[in-house]
């Protein structure tokens, strides 16, 4: 059952990912991407990582994608451009996709360890409580540090888009 579910979800993930890329209209891409994110959230749920799944939805679908959509709307990009894309580019892209996918997959197949029994610790490791503890104890410093990251990006976004007042 779970296996089937995995395959279905995987198919959706990959398909929507492909559609994101192949759609000519950026709006469509965005919508397919949201679908893709949902399917990934589905994977998370399969792992029983509910908190993560929810955060994922909120952050990606709720924040990032909305941001992108806003931008698209703002720039009025909901039309099909990219007419000047050469055949060479397409072929090169397709070829390199095939190549890199093949190479990576082959490498992983080759590096496949024989695993008969998966570890079951029996302990809770992914509830909100545990994650919170880990995040705010062990990973406190990176957590704080991430704030610096966000601060930088905030300053950056402001810096790049703010209008200058020469005389101030």
């Amino acid at each position, binding site marked *: 059952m779970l296996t089937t579910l995995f395959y279905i979800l995987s198919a959706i993930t990959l398909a929507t990912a492909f559609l994101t890329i192949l759609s000519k209209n950026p709006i469509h891409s965005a919508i397919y991407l949201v679908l893709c994110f949902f399917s990934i959230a589905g994977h998370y749920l399969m792992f029983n990582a509910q908190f993560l799944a929810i955060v994922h939805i909120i952050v990606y679908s709720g924040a990032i994608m909305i941001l992108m959509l806003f931008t698209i709307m703002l720039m009025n990009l909901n039309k099909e451009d990219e007419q000047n894309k050469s055949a060479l*580019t397409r072929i*090169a*892209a397709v070829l*390199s996709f095939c*190549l*890199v996918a093949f*190479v990576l997959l*082959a490498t992983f197949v*080759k*590096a496949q360890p024989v695993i008969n029994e998966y570890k079951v610790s029996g302990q809770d490791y992914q509830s909100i409580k545990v994650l919170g503890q880990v995040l705010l104890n062990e990973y406190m410093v990176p957590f704080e540090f991430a704030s610096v990251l966000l601060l930088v990006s905030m300053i950056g976004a402001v810096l790049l888009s703010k209008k200058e007042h020469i005389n101030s």
Partner: protein
Amino acid sequence: MDTKLALLLLFAPFIGFLINVFTGKKLSGNLSGIIGTAAVAVSFAVTLSFFLQVSSTKEAVMVDLFQWMKLANFDVHFAFQLDQLSLLWLMFVTGIGTLIHVYSISYMHDDENIHKFFAYLNLFVFFMITLVMGNNLLIMFIGWEGVGLCSYLLIGFWYKNQDYNDAAKKAFIMNRIGDLGFLIGIFIIGYLFHSLDYTDIRTVIETGSHHIDPTWLSIAALCLFIGACGKSAQIPLYTWLPDAMAGPTPVSALIHAATMVTAGIFMITRLNYVFDLAPEVQNIIAIVGAVTSLIAASIGLVQNDIKKVLAYSTVSQLGLMFLALGLGAYEIAVFHVITHAFFKACLFLGSGSVIHAMHGEQDMRYMGGLRKVMKVTFITFLISTLAISGLPPFAGFFSKDEILMTAFHHNKPLWVIGSVASIMTAFYMFRLLYLTFYKDFRGTEEQKKHLHESPGLITFPLIVLAILAAVGGAISLPGNSWLNEYLAPVITRHAEHHHMGTTEYMLMAVAIVGALIGIGLAYAKYIKQSAVPAQDSEITGFAKVLYNKFYVDEIYTALIVKPIYALGSFFKNVTEVAISGFIFGLGKLANVLGAEGKTLQNGSIGFYLFAFVLGICSIIVYIFLAK
């Protein structure tokens, strides 16, 4: 005391040189001449005293100053040796040198650079004394190259004329070819004997204290002989000497007749013990000497320039000396050197006197009849001519006859060659005499008006030299040779004294008859027929070949000089370009790659990412998949 005197002997001319160089401009011409002459005269005086001293004590005077060079196996010192041989040489170097200085005072009187002339002349004497006095080969080499330098300076004395400069350069370079041989010879000697001192070398040979490889010794002797060839103008390095006549006539007399060119003979005589051990080389020397003598004489037959004739005659006479050396008859060679110095110096100075009178004209075709105006010159010239032609009782007869006699005993073909050369000598010398002094004057009226006997300063040396040329033979009369006895200590193997038997008298007679034939021929042609040599363009046939000196200069140019220039052009235009092209081509290649690489950096993110992905793929493939 000896040391100081020896240094005085050596440095007197050098001091003269310095005075003339540094203050010459301010001195009057006569004064610099007097200073120069006095400097050499001092040397002569000192030489004389040493000569007398050594003649009586029979002990060589040795002077050791200080260490000069240091080599692994031996040291070379600044040291001098005044023994019989060197003193003999010094006697006529300084003696004739003094006379020629005297002569020059008058001869060069009008030249603006007279102080320089005397400076160079003094310098020459200084180097010549060094050459002769040194007690080892390297000191000799200093003198050897030094006289070459002075020769260069004096040949090119009238430096505004580039032809003269060419002649000077040619003399120097040809000498240097010989010098290289000399140098190589010195190397081998040094290597073999672990010393360059004459006495050490002699000791080693005489005691046999260590083994000397005969092959190497022969090579050394050969190399030294090459050196001698250069300096003494033997085949194949003789062509500079006739050209050297570009210099003022006193120079020709002093350097290119009497002293410098005999340095080769001096060197071989000095090292007679070495050459004795190399009979093959001695053979070569004899043959080269004989052939040179013949060839030079034959060229001399048709030359029209009065000095050129004398120059070829010098070469020819030097050839005879080498013939003697090659036969091991060192004393005889030395004897001929001395007599030759007398009469040839006299001849040159005489010709100088003539040229002086002719205002620089040297072509005999435009002379004639000078006998009447220039009595002293004529008489001295005649005596010398007789001497060189080998007529008794003049000096040349004895020395030349001894050489031919020795040749006859050792090697008949060489005797034939030598005799033919002697006959030719008699012919062309009398040709010279007749053309210059007899018949009528053939020059311009202008010249004729100014014809005059030279002043006393010029004629005085002529007279002295003529006397010497006349009686000089006395120092080594057949059968009773003072010279041989005197030189005995420095020569290890003595020429066998020919018992004066019938053969010897026969030979003498033959020689005299030969000389007379030569004179007769000249008389027949130039007095009887009043022939005057043809103009250059009219000379044909073998005479033309002779007149053009067998085209040796041209052959040398074609075979050596031109190829060197061609090689130079090749190096300059091909190899240099190729080498730098290759090396700097690498730099160009880098630049080209850089320029080409720019197309790869095409600004497209797509392409950059594509390269990125390809990079990932290739790295992963290489690390994980390529096994």
